[in-house]
C-alpha cells in the first residue's frame, strides 16, 4: 500500500492497483518540470525542480532562497528590542510563537521574571495563533486538493481570531505583542470574553468540518497512504511539529522542553502512527481541539496582577553568553539561539525554523509518487516559504 517506496520508477514491479507503477517496458525517458517559483501549489515562491517520468516524480529537488531576507544577519546589527518585530515576519502565520521564542531567549539571558498574568496571556494568544495558523493550513490544503469552499469557512473563523488579537496589539498578522518581561498591553475583559465566545463558537464548527470534509471519501482517498514518512526519516531530517507527531512520535516542545505555564495546563499530544498525509491532517485537526482546551483552562486560571515585569531597562545589555529558547510553533519546533558579548547588539542570532527541516524530507519522501500525490503530501507538510528562507 505504501506508494512512495515500492513504486520507485526504476523498480520493475506491478505495483498496487491504487498506486500503479510505470511499466518496466516503457522507455526510460524523463523530463524536467519546474514547479514554481510561481505555481498555485507552491504557496509562495518555492521552486521544486522535478525530474518527471511521465506523471511520476523521480526526483524533486526543492530550490529555496527566493525570499531570503537575511533575518539572522539583521539581528547582528540592531538592538535586542529592535530585532523583536523581525521575528514575527519569519513565519507570518504563527507570529506569536516566534516572538515568544525570541523574547524567551532574551529573558533567559537577562534573567527577567515574567509575571504570571503575562505568561497566561501568552499561552492564550499563542494557542489562538496556533488555531488560526492551522485553519489557514486546512483551507490551503483543501485548495491544493481542489476543494475551493473550505478555505472560505476557515478564513471566516480565522477572522474572529484576527479581530481578537488586533484588539490586543493592533496587528492582524505580524504581531509584536510580547515584550521582554511581559506584554505590550494588558489583556482586557473584552478580549477574555471574546475569546470565551470564540471557543464556544469554534467547537461546533470543528465538528462540522469533520463531518463535511474529514470524512469525505474523496479526501480520504487523496490522503490515506499517501506520502508516508517514517519516524526515522523525521529524525534524520529533524522534522518536528505535526509532521513528526503524524509519524507516531509524541514530540511536542510544550512537553519536551516545558516553557511558560504549559506544565500547569492539561492537554494531550495528538499522535497518529500511520505517518501518511492523513495522519498529519488528523494531528492538526486534533491540535485545534487541544488548543481550545488549553485556552479554556488558561482563561479560568489567569490571575490578576501586573502584565509586565518591573525594571526592564529600556536598552538591554545581555550578559555575555549563549542562550536559547525553543517553542512549539504551529509548524513545529522553533528555536532562537542568541549569543551575547555583553553589548547592546546581539553577537549572533540563530533561528531554527521548522519548515526548513520539514521541507528537506520532501525530496526523499516524494520519490516515485505521482504528481498530484506529491503535491498533496507537500500540502500536508504545511510549508510557509518565508519560514524556510527567513
Amino acid at each position, binding site marked *: 500500500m505504501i506508494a512512495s517506496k515500492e513504486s520507485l520508477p526504476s523498480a520493475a514491479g506491478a505495483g498496487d492497483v491504487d498506486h500503479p507503477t510505470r511499466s518496466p517496458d516503457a522507455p526510460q525517458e524523463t523530463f524536467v518540470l519546474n514547479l514554481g517559483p510561481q*505555481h*498555485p501549489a507552491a504557496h509562495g515562491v518555492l521552486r521544486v525542480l522535478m525530474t518527471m517520468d511521465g506523471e511520476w516524480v523521480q526526483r524533486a529537488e526543492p530550490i529555496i532562497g527566493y525570499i531570503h531576507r537575511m533575518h539572522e544577519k539583521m539581528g547582528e546589527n540592531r538592538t535586542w528590542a529592535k530585532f523583536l518585530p523581525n521575528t514575527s515576519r519569519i513565519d507570518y502565520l504563527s507570529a506569536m510563537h516566534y516572538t515568544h521564542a525570541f523574547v524567551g531567549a532574551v529573558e533567559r539571558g537577562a534573567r527577567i521574571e515574567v509575571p504570571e498574568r503575562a505568561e497566561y496571556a501568552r499561552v492564550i494568544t499563542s494557542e489562538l495563533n496556533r488555531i488560526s495558523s492551522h485553519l489557514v493550513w486546512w483551507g490551503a490544503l483543501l485548495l491544493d486538493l481542489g476543494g475551493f469552499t473550505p478555505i472560505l*469557512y476557515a478564513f*471566516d473563523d480565522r477572522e474572529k481570531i484576527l479581530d481578537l488579537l488586533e484588539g490586543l496589539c493592533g496587528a492582524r498578522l505580524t504581531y509584536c505583542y510580547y515584550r521582554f518581561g511581559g506584554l505590550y498591553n494588558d489583556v482586557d475583559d473584552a478580549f477574555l470574553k471574546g475569546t470565551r465566545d470564540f471557543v464556544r463558537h469554534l467547537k461546533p464548527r470543528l465538528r462540522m468540518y469533520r463531518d463535511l470534509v474529514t470524512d469525505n471519501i474523496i479526501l480520504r482517498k487523496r490522503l490515506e497512504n499517501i506520502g508516508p514518512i517514517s519516524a526515522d526519516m523525521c529524525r534524520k531530517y529533524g522534522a518536528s511539529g505535526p509532521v513528526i507527531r503524524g509519524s507516531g512520535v509524541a514530540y511536542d516542545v510544550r512537553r519536551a522542553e516545558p516553557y511558560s505555564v504549559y506544565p500547569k495546563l492539561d492537554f494531550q499530544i495528538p499522535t497518529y502512527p500511520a505517518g501518511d498525509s492523513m495522519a498529519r491532517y488528523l494531528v492538526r485537526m486534533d491540535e485545534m481541539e487541544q488548543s481550545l482546551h488549553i485556552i479554556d483552562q488558561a482563561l479560568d486560571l489567569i490571575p490578576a496582577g501586573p502584565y509586565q515585569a518591573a525594571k526592564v531597562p529600556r536598552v538591554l545589555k545581555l550578559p555575555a553568553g549563549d542562550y536559547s529558547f525553543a517553542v512549539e510553533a504551529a509548524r513545529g519546533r522553533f528555536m532562537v539561539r542568541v549569543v551575547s558579548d555583553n553589548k547592546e547588539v546581539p553577537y549572533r542570532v540563530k533561528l531554527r525554523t521548522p519548515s526548513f527541516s520539514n521541507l528537506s524530507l520532501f525530496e526523499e519522501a516524494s520519490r516515485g509518487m505521482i504528481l498530484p500525490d506529491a503535491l498533496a503530501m507537500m500540502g500536508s507538510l504545511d510549508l510557509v516559504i518565508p519560514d524556510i528562507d527567513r
Partner: protein
Amino acid sequence: MTTFLSLEPIRVLLYLVGICAFVGGNAAYLVLAERKGAGRIQRRPGPNEAGWAGVLQPLADGLKLLAKQVLVPPGSDSLLYRIAPLMVMAPPLMCLVTIPFGDTVVARNLDIGLLFVFAFGSINVMALMLGGWASRNKYSIMSSARVVSQNVAYEIPMLLVVITLLMMTGTMDLQEITAQQSGGFWNWNIIRGIWDFKAGHIGANLLMPVTFVIFFTCMLAETNRAPFDMAEAESELVAGAFTEYGGMGFGVFFMAEYANIVVGCSVATVLFFGGWQSPVGFLSGGLWGVGWFLLKAYALIFTVIWVRWTFPRTQFYNLLNLSWKILIPVSLFTLMLTGVLIKVPQWLHHLR
C-alpha cells in the same frame, strides 16, 4: 408569415442563429450562475458590482476576453493551437441540433439522434488534446494525456448506460424517447424502468436510479467538471490544457465547457426525466414544454455546479479505478438485467 418561417432555408438559418445565441448567452450566464452559486455555497455574495446584482458581469468578462490578444507561444504548433478552440466549440453546437427543447422546438429531429449526440460529444476530447499538445507546455501535455485516458475510461460506462436505455426505448429518436414518457412524472424513464405504469407490469431496468447516477458521474467526467477536472487541475497542472491560452482562445474553451454541460444535462433530461413532458400530465405542449425542459435541464446543471463547489478533486488513478472497477461492471450488470427483464416476459408470453 407562418409559411415564410417554415420555409426550409429560413428555418435552418433561424435555428442556427438561435442555437449560437443560446450557447453563447447560456455560457455567459452560466458562468455568472456558477459564480453566484459558488458564492452562496461559500457564504459570500459573488459578483455584484456590474449592473444589478452583477447581471452585467458576463458582458464585462466577455469584453475583457475579446479585447485581449490571443498570444501564440513561440515554438508551439500555431495552426493546431488556433484550431483547437474551434474544435472544442463545434461539437456541442452540433449536438444541440437534435436536442428536442419542446414538441416542435427542435432544429432537426434525427432518427439516430442519440448516436449523433454521442458521436459529436466524443470529439471534445480530441480538441482538448490538440490544444494541450500544440501549446508546447509540459503541464498542458500532461493534461492532454490525462484527458484522453479519462475520456476513454468514462466513455465506456456512459455508452453502456445508453445502450441499456436504448433496449428499453427501442429507438434512438430523441423526440420519440420523449413521447414515450408522456403523462406525468411516474412515466419518466427513471421510474418507468422500475415499474411501467402505462403497460402495468415490471419495468425493464430495476436499477434505473443507479443507472442515472452512473450516467451523471460519467457526464461530469466527460465534461471535465470537478471532482473529475483532471484537464484543468489548477493546483497541480496550473491550468492544464488551457495554460497557454489567453483572451478569447481561453474564453472559447471556457464557453465550450458550459455548452458541454448543457448538452450533457439536456441528454440526461431526455433520457431519464421525460424531456419536455410535464411532470403532472397536463400543460405539456408548446411553450410549456420548453419551460419544463429548461427547468429540468437547469436543475441538473445546478447540481453540477453544486457538486463542483462541494467536493475536492479526485486523484487521477482513483478516477480511473472508479470507472474500470465500479462503473463499468455495474453498468454491464444493468445492461444484462435489462436484457433479461425485457426478454423473459416475451418468452413467457410466447409460451402461453
